[in-house]
């Protein structure tokens, strides 16, 4: 494990201070991080000056927007000119890497600080008002005890260690936290920012405790709401969908400006509807509810990072992130693919292997 610096025990204050030092010594043009909004909420900001900056809340345990989505919108037209420190959770980083593979964003000049992730709380909790004490209690998660009230996707997340971050905030021994390096660049940044801090590294015991808890959490969350079998179950679970497509708009992978399922060719024509009306006796309007979800699944399940943003924005509480996680895991396992693990790893859907899925026939 690469060298890291001990940043103490007092989270989230210690993290804020560490970020401050990185900003001062790292030669960054700006920092992309969660921060306090004028109305007391939390959102992402690109902050360039200390003076007049909003209160920075790096890795605050909510995900108002998927950072990968925001970075995509920003870098779609090309790389960032100067070096920017980007502070995001592992699933956000992985989501962005997936979208870069689709040539919809650019990693150049972005230095990533991520975390051995404890998960985040539902978005609805922010609009209901945030209790500051919750944040402090939250950061005790490396002890492996489940944090109450996390989003279901986070409760069952086993990919809580970032793959490609330059800097990783990680639990260290004796309740301490360490800022560890995930790349050479990260190592240099730590040396510059913390020349005299005691060395520290990731505590494998804490990671193990978290892994055990998450595996149990995963079994738990996938066994209830996501226990959907066959078309009739799908019709039931998506029956209350209002067709707003918020899930796809919040998704870091769904990048199409015009989704196929919103295009003209998917719209009903009365000539066809008449036939269906004869056969089925009735047609739902708008039609194609289950088709949309299955179709979206077909398009993005292989890259689904199970970030949970889809479920966070669903106005009718469909367990959409769990269903997509379940299918995503199955598809990804078939291709031995971990979305966002490595930007050089090719996407299964545009990689042709003559022998794949032999059992499906010639």
């Amino acid at each position, binding site marked *: 494990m690469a060298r890291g610096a001990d940043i103490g025990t007092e989270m989230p204050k210690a993290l804020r201070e560490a970020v401050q030092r990185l900003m001062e010594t790292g030669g960054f043009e700006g920092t992309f991080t969660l921060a306090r909004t004028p109305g007391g909420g939390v959102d992402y*900001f690109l902050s360039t000056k200390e003076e007049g900056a909003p209160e920075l809340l790096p890795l605050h345990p909510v995900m108002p927007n998927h950072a990968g989505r*925001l970075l995509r919108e*920003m870098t779609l037209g090309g790389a960032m000119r100067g070096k920017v420190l980007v502070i995001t959770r592992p699933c956000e980083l992985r989501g962005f890497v997936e979208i870069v593979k689709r040539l919809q964003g650019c990693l150049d000049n972005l230095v990533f600080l991520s975390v051995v992730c404890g998960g985040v709380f539902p978005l609805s909790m922010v*609009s209901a008002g945030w209790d500051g004490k919750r944040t402090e209690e939250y950061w005790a998660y490396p002890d492996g005890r489940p944090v109450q009230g996390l989003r279901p996707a986070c409760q069952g997340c086993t990919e809580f260690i970032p793959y490609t971050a330059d800097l990783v905030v990680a639990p260290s021994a004796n309740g301490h936290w360490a800022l560890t390096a995930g790349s050479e660049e990260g190592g240099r940044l730590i040396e510059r920012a913390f020349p005299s801090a005691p060395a520290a590294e990731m505590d494998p015991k804490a990671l193990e405790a978290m892994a055990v808890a998450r595996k149990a959490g995963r079994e738990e969350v996938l066994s209830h709401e996501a226990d959907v079998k066959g078309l009739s179950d799908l019709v039931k679970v998506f029956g209350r969908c*209002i067709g707003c497509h918020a899930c796809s708009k919040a998704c870091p992978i769904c990048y199409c400006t015009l989704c196929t399922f919103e295009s003209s060719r998917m719209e009903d024509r009365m000539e066809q509807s008449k036939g269906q*009306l004869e056969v089925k006796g009735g047609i739902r309007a708008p039609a194609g509810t289950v088709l949309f979800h299955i179709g979206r699944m077909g398009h993005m399940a292989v890259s689904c990072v199970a970030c949970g943003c889809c479920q966070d924005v669903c106005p009718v509480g469909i367990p959409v992130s769990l269903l997509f996680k379940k299918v995503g895991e199955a598809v990804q396992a078939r291709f031995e693919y971990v979305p966002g693990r490595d930007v050089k790893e090719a996407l299964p859907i545009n990689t042709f292997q003559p022998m794949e899925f032999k059992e499906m026939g010639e």
Partner: protein
Amino acid sequence: MSEAPRGATIQGEEGPRALVPLLARALEKGTSDAVLLPLRTPGQDSYAFVLVKDPRLLRQADPLPPVQTVTGGRALSSLTRHGGGGVRILAVMRPCEARGAIELSKLGQVDLKDVTLITMDCPGTVPLQRFARGDLRPSAVGFADQDIRPICQVCDLSCAAVGDLHLGWGEGLAPILIPMDERGAEALLAMGLRAESDTSEWRTTVSSRSQERRERREERLGQLRVASSGLDNLMVRLDSCINCHNCMRACPICYCRVCAFDIRRQERSANEVLDLAKARGSMRLPMDTLMFHLGRMNHMSLNCVSCGACEDACPAGVPIAQLFAMVSDRTQSAFKYRAGMDRQQRSPLITFLEKELEGEDGQRC
């Protein structure tokens, strides 16, 4: 209407469910090809609009569900946007939904040619998200209900008889079906009913309901206007917005396939964002949240029917329907327009009058 309309008193079930056997009769008689109305979903946990041909499906029907899922205007638009194809539809929905459908027809997104709109007095709906969570899931809503959405609480057009046929009911009123035009009269006849009853009791009830709501609307939206006046206060009202644009996608009026503001957010380069952040010290991301809301308001406030679908769909708890109601009340009155109330009156945005913004009392805007 110069002469007070007469109506047909319905026997049987109290309230809007009394409509169901009548709709079945109209279907069986063949005077209509299909009925569009809310049915309980297969999981029995919500409602969806279904175009029904087989009367047996009407067993799952609830003409006036306690919650608004997809608005009727949107449902009708999904079916008839590319033309109604000559299918004669009886479309059952709330007044605000029918008003949405009427606005959409003016915008060329709904074909009302063969549609008979059936509306009914509406007591309001409960918030969609509370309904979905299950913590507020009544089987029906009554006129005295306190749990209805804030936007319903200030709805002065909840009993607007904008349909061809309108059902008056509630608060001791025997359900009465009132034809508002020729098409409504034909539909009534197909149901085997005659408009022989006096409607004065219904009219009195509606007028007192509406008066009360109008006063409350003035008061509450007035308070909101004070609380959100000026850019800073408006920003506070919109603070929790995550810029997901779900308000727009739930809106019956926002019909554009690709919204101008969805394209706009991809147009800024990384360096442009960085320069802006440097000039200001920091930039909130996503950008242009305020611009989106103001832009959308500009595009649709003249057609806004205050149906509240935007607020129901908002994952961040922004009182967006109330903000839009607050603005659209003023923009619509400046043009002497009330969205969805008059099918003949052209939409102000496509009507040019040289002096349209100069009233007797000077400038209107």
